[in-house]
């Protein structure tokens, strides 16, 4: 899949989701008690779940919430990585060794395990919005090491370039050098890092949600919607139960293609 095709498909999906939420008469939390586990009808296009909530609306909302959260978390993690990577590249040797050891430590520990621990240790009384924000913040806080390493390597190679030496000889301070010369040169590195993080965070949220540690109900999320697959009564009634998993796979496929296309560009 080409980069432009992936971008157009993603945009279409986002627009379609927005449209579904706009035209729907009920919100994602509305429970139609007369249509519990209903198959596809004109009112509920892809049926309802065990609480009578419209599956199309919930899938559309999960898509938007997931993408927004993952993109925000990816932006935060890229910013943290950029700061730490630059700090490691421009600080004394002992400080960079320490920072790199910290990133290696994070890198070498299993990601999902760390996420699971950090997420589960939060208050049990948190509201759905708080759980969503916390989940994505935890993802952002733990996702920086690989990105920081790449930025560190990029910044180190730029640091020893001739034009940097010239800048230093002209009297530019380290802060000015970073702002004027290093950051613009690192932009082509930062964008692919950001794009790689988005699908990774979506997968992590889905895995956490499937363990009951993701975004809290009634707010829809990929992970929470995957839990529907455990309900055999629901599976026997409608094939639309598989909609979230199919949609998630499609979104991830598009995002992976987009990130790969951007990295090769």
């Amino acid at each position: 899949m080409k980069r432009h095709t992936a971008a157009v498909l993603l945009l279409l999906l986002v627009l379609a989701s927005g449209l579904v939420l706009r035209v729907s008469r009920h919100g994602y939390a509305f429970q139609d008690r007369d249509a519990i586990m209903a198959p596809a009808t004109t009112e509920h296009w892809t049926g309802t779940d065990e609480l009578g909530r419209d599956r199309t609306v919930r899938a559309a909302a999960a898509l938007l919430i997931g993408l927004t959260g993952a993109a925000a978390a990816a932006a935060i993690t890229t910013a943290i990585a950029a700061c730490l990577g630059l700090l490691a590249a421009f600080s004394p040797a002992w400080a960079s060794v320490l920072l790199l050891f910290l990133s290696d430590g994070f890198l070498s520990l299993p990601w999902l395990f760390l996420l699971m621990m950090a997420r589960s240790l939060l208050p049990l009384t948190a509201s759905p919005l708080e759980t969503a924000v916390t989940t994505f913040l935890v993802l952002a806080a733990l996702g920086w090491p690989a990105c920081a390493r790449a930025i560190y390597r990029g910044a180190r190679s730029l640091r020893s370039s001739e034009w940097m030496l010239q800048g230093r000889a002209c009297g530019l301070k380290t802060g000015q050098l970073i702002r004027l010369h290093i950051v613009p040169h690192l932009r082509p590195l930062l964008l692919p890092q950001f794009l790689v993080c988005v699908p990774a965070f979506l997968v992590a949220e889905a895995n956490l949600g499937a363990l009951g540690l993701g975004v809290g109900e009634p707010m829809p999320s990929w992970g929470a919607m995957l839990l529907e697959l455990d309900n055999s009564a629901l599976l026997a009634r409608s094939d639309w139960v598989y909609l979230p998993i199919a949609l998630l796979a499609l979104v991830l496929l598009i995002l992976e293609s987009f990130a790969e296309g951007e990295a090769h560009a």
Partner: protein
Amino acid sequence: MNLPRAIAMRVGRGLLLMLFAATGTILLVRFAPGFFADSREMDARYAQAARAEMEVESGRQQSVVQIARQEAKGWLAGDFGQSRQYGVPVAELIGARARVSALLLAQGILRGWLLAVCAALPISALRRGGLLWSLPFTLLLAIPASAMATACILADAGSPALVLSLLIAAREFKFLRSLLEEAWRAPHLLQGRAGGLAPLALVRMHMAPNIAPQLRALATLSIVTALGALVPIEVIFTVPGVGQLAWSAVMNRDLPVLVAVSLLMALVVALAGMLSTHDRTLEAA
């Protein structure tokens, strides 16, 4: 750098990593809201004296240093402390489960690598259509481990090892393909091809020795990936392994079990990291 120093540095790095994991776990759990909450307090069967004893026990866990000291005592005693949830030594809990998880990890990683190598070798040599042949792996990459495990249970087919191997295969195929594509383009391989060397001989004599260090580094990453995927797979398939124990410990804030599992994972990763860089250390020395 001489060899003993290089080895000492590797070991030191591994130990520091474990210390980092233990400290991080203790800090995370100690400062988590509700750490001092104990479900036994709600149980009417406990007498006043028992409650007072529980309070004293909980008071001992106020400071991080005290918790660390208790954990260290448990480790020195060889039982890794007492599980808060099950009331048995942690070593007893982990011992039996570690074997189950190790077997699952070994099966998953070996099968995953076999699948990835068997697919990546011919696909990377193709001049056209490589993207189309890679599509199944790209699709697998787009399915979270938990969803894959649930799908297997629904279809009443597959096993935890299959899910783990598919996950590893999808991840490693991506890296292997680009690594092999680059290797096929190397001038000496082109010359070997032009000279009429059979593809298998080319791979065995020229390609494999050149990409071996990268493959070892990739293998280390496979272990980390597999350890991460172990939790959802074991929980969904109800496999009595370390991943399931970790999940249960997280849900019940069982600190001794959490610290032991974190250290076990850090140890596995540190050992794998040491092995993957061992040859390079020897070469450099």
